[in-house]
Structures are given as structure tokens and as C-alpha cells.
């Protein structure tokens, strides 16, 4: 593929030759590829259709401005999505506060400092972290992180007594979960920076620290930003870990040691319950799902745009 001259097309593509299978193959494979487009269309249709039913009963203004979410209250149900968005935001910000510094420094270490032998062990180890099911992280949060926070609350003054389910434990495990995402994409971007740039800086008398932070980091910034956005988008959509760790109480609190509910956790709550088709609970599933989809979709597109817009070509 990397030859300079385009190889001649000998495939007899345009000719009507071979068996029926030869001629049909293209269309069969196209159908397979088209399944992905159909999936996207189906997601949009399903979410919009369900959300439409929901918004025919609940006004958009109420949905986006009310601060109380109790859709299944028998008397006077309330449909303000803000507490759920707030919960998701708390988890996401907390996770980003952990994963962004840790992931970036890990990437710098692996790309600039690490001995090849260390890298050979450290990289797959971090990849294991990415392969562990999220339900396991949820279990880890309630059986390990929350007890640690509970015992720390007596010793460290700024930690109040956490609830059994709390946003902090959820944010910590989601943060751990997305470290490999930040570190591996950032490391790829840093490794793509050509050595000539590093050597030029060394020639000017820069130290390794200066080369890493003032040459490599800026040169790979677009890749690093894309990694951050992808990781944050992943944290927004994270479901099982936050459902187990952060609880099911939609409220807008500024205390990360209190119970909250994220958008995804609410969807699990309805999904495991018996919301009958057509009920407002069932319809709210699609309204929340659409909100979630739009948020992550915008971030993914933004991340792709950054990568293509600012990618420095070092070929």
C-alpha cells in the first residue's frame, strides 16, 4: 500500500466475470457494512421516538430547568433532569481530576522515560485495567473504596462521614477505569513526535524535563486533548460502577460524600424494575437516553475534530 505508484487494478472488477457469487459478494459485504449505519439510524429513531412520547407529556422547559426528579411519585411527579445531570457531572469531574493528571504523567513516563523492559510490563498491565468489566469496578468501590473512605473520615479532617453510597467512591473507580484510556492514546500521540524535535531541544541545552514538558507535550497536544475528551465521554456513559457505588438518590449536592444518582444509574433503576410499556417511567428512559447520547455524541465528534484539525503531520 505504501508503494509510490498505484498498483494496477487487475481484479477484473468492472468485468462481469465469475460465478454469481463473485458478482454478489460486493453487495453482501456492503450489506454487512451498512448494518453499522442502520444501527446509528435505529439508535436515533428509537431514542427520538421514545423521547417524543415523553415530551408530549412533559414540557422541555420543565425537563431542563426543574431541580427535582421524581418521575414515579404517585402524587405530583416531577421531571427536572438537572439532579441526574448534576450527578453525572460530579462523577465525571471527579474521575477526570484523577485520570487526567495520572494518565498524562503515566504517558510521559512510558513514552519519554521508561526503560523498554519496564514499558513492556507496565503497558499490558494498564491494559488489563481497561479490560476489567465495569461491574467489577462497582464491586471494588463498595467493598474496598467506600470502607477506606469511611475509616479515613475519622482520621482526616476534611473528609466527612460518607454515605454507604457516595459520589466520591464512584468517581474514584471511574477515574481508575479511564486512566488507561488517557494514558494509551496520549502515549501514542507522544511517541509520534519525531526524535529530531527532541534532539533539537537537547542541542539547545534543554534538560529531559524541559524536553518532555515544553517540546513533546505541546507537540502532541491535539492527541492528548482527544484522549481527555474520549475518556470524559466514557465517564459520562459509565453505568454499572456508578450504579453500585454512587447510589440512587437524585439530588443536587455539593458534597461528594453524599448519595447521588447519575443519568445512567436512573436508567438501570427503571431497567431492572417493571416499568410497563407506555408508562411515563418507561418513556423517561428514552428521554434520558437521548440526553446521554447527544452529550457523548457531541464529545466524540469534538474529539475527532480536534484530532483531524490540529494533528501535526510528522511523516
Amino acid at each position, binding site marked *: 500500500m505504501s508503494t509510490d505508484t498505484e498498483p494496477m487494478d487487475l481484479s477484473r472488477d468492472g468485468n462481469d466475470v465469475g460465478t454469481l457469487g463473485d458478482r454478489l459478494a460486493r453487495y453482501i459485504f456492503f450489506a454487512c457494512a451498512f*448494518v453499522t449505519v442502520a444501527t446509528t439510524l435505529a439508535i436515533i429513531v428509537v431514542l427520538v421516538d421514545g423521547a417524543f412520547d415523553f415530551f408530549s407529556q412533559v414540557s422541555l422547559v420543565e425537563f431542563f430547568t426543574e431541580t427535582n426528579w421524581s418521575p414515579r411519585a404517585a402524587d405530583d411527579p416531577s421531571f427536572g433532569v438537572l439532579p441526574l445531570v448534576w450527578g453525572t457531572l460530579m462523577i465525571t469531574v471527579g474521575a477526570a481530576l484523577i485520570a487526567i493528571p495520572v494518565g498524562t504523567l503515566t504517558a510521559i513516563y512510558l513514552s*519519554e522515560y521508561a526503560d523498554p523492559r519496564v514499558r513492556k510490563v507496565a503497558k499490558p498491565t494498564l491494559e488489563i485495567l481497561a479490560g476489567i468489566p465495569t*461491574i467489577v469496578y462497582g464491586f471494588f468501590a463498595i467493598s474496598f473504596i467506600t470502607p477506606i473512605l469511611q475509616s479515613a473520615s475519622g482520621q482526616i479532617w476534611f473528609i466527612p462521614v460518607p454515605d454507604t453510597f457516595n459520589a466520591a467512591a464512584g468517581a474514584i473507580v471511574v477515574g481508575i477505569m479511564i486512566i488507561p484510556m488517557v494514558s494509551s492514546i496520549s502515549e501514542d500521540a507522544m511517541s509520534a513526535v519525531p526524535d529530531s524535535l527532541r534532539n533539537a531541544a537537547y542541542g539547545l541545552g534543554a534538560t529531559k524535563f524541559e524536553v518532555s514538558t515544553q517540546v513533546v507535550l505541546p507537540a502532541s497536544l491535539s492527541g492528548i486533548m482527544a484522549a481527555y475528551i474520549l475518556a470524559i465521554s466514557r465517564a459520562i456513559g459509565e453505568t454499572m460502577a456508578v450504579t453500585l457505588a454512587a447510589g440512587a438518590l437524585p439530588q443536587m449536592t455539593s458534597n461528594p460524600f453524599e448519595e447521588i444518582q447519575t443519568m445512567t444509574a436512573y436508567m438501570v433503576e427503571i431497567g431492572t424494575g417493571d416499568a410497563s410499556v407506555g408508562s411515563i417511567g418507561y418513556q423517561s428512559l428514552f428521554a434520558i437516553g437521548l440526553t446521554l447520547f447527544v452529550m457523548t455524541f457531541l464529545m466524540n465528534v469534538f474529539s475527532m475534530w480536534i484530532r483531524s484539525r490540529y494533528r501535526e503531520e510528522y511523516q
Partner: protein
Amino acid sequence: MSTQTADEADEFEFDESAVKRKRQLGKVFLGLCFAATMVGVVALIALLYDVVSEAWGWLTWEFLTYPPSQVVEHYNPANYGDLPTGPGGMYPMIVGSIYLIILTAIFTLFLGVGAAIYLEEYAPDSLLTRFIEANISNLAGVPSIVYGLLGLAVFVRAMQTGASLIAGALTLTLLILPIVIVQSQESLRAVPDSMRQASYGAGATKWQTIRNVVLPEAVPGIMTGIILSLSRAIGETAPILMVGAATTLFAPPSLTDPSGPFGAMPMQIFEWAKLPEENFQHVAAAGIVVLLTLLLLMNAVAIYIRNKYDPRG
């Protein structure tokens, strides 16, 4: 003239302490970077230690071979002797997960490899092709619970499969399809063009070339990609939860009639982990150990295939 030389002398004067400070700063930074790398490693060790220590003593042969129970005492190996109902376990869920993966593997194999063949071998460099590829990388970023909603609305409701094995497998297929396609594309791209040219030169048609030359060469890479994606699918909880995977199911689902209710390991682990009784934590941990062992086995197979057939590593 004389002032200039004085300036130059100043400029080249060596400030030892500044160099020392820089060196120290460099060391501190290296220390920080190393510590950050260790955060991930330590977290992994803590997680594995936590799960194994909680599961210790609760993971027995009976746990693998008996259906679940509502009563936590039934899972405790100390009580096995005097239980009229038999011990509690996760047998139906283990079988359910394996069936789910078999069906998902079949669907992904055809759809994923087919789509990759189209995009790599057939697709013209057109707007539509670029749209399909952009769409695939976008789908990879859609939260898994949204796929669950899709499965619920399309397979369970619209196609009326009910909360069945087939609905779960189809949902998981759509979920991992983007990853499988991208990885299969990479394997196909790694097949040198000279091999295709040689095949065409011998008079083969395009489909014959793909079938007899390109695919055999790319199969190890494709298999590795599919197995790794399946190991992601087997641990996914949110999609099968939305589709309606059952809990406390007493018999494994039927592979020949995949329209009945099904259970799967991650769903059952979620149910156990939610329960307030403290001992259910041990049961959940035992379930996690089984799940992680299965994941480990699948990854080992994938790595084995990669090392055995792919000299490029």
C-alpha cells in the same frame, strides 16, 4: 568594547545552583511520572486482592454447578451438609454467558468480517465510504447502556423476541461490531498487496482472491480481535440488563431454542452486589472470580493465536 567583554563574561558565568535546581526538578518530575504509572498498577493489584480475598472460601465446585438461591446461607460452604435444596451457585448464569458469547461470536464473525472486507477490499474512496467509517468510530463511543435501550426497543419490543438469549446476543453484537470491524480492517490491511496482485495474475477473480489469499492470511489477526471483543462483551452488564436478562434463573437457557429467558454472569453479580446482607458480598466476589477467570482464558487464547501465527507480533 570593554563593557561588551564584561557582559559576555557575565553571560557565560556558570551558576551551579541553577543547574542543581534543574536537576532536582527533573528528578521530582520523574518521580511524579513514575508514581502516576504505579497508581494504575497498584489499583489493579488492590482490585484483584480485594476480589480474591472476599471470594476466598466461598468459591467451591458446588458454586459452579448449582442454581442460585435467595438465601445467603445456601452459598456458605459450611452449610452445604444440611441443605434440603442443595447449595446455591451460578451454574445457569455461567452456561447463559457462554451461550450468549457463542451466539454473539457467530453474528459478529459474519457481520464484522463482512463489513471489514467491504471497507478494505471493495469500497471506493467515496463520500459514502468515509461516512461509514466515521460512523463506525462514532458508534464505538456510544455508551453501552444506549445499546441496551436499542436492544430493548428493537429486538425485545419491535421484533418481539422477548427478553431472550437471541435479543441479548444481537444487542451485544451491535455493541462490539465497531471494534471488530476496525480490528479486522487492520488485519486485512496488513496483507501485502503483492499477494493480491499475484492472485489476480493467476487469473483469480476478486472474490476468489479474498477467499483464498487475503482471508487465510488475515485470519489470525481477525480471530484475535474477535476474541478480545467477545471478552469485553461477556463482562457487559448494562446492555443485557436493559434487554431484560433474568436473575435467579434455575435452569440454563436452551441454545437450540434461544427465545426463552436467559441469565448471565455479570447480571447475577450485579444482583448479588446490590443485596444488603453482608455475606452476599462474598458470593458476588466468588462470581467475579469466575467471570475474571473466563476473561483471562479468552485473553490467553487470543494472545496465543497472535503469537503463534503473527510473526510481526
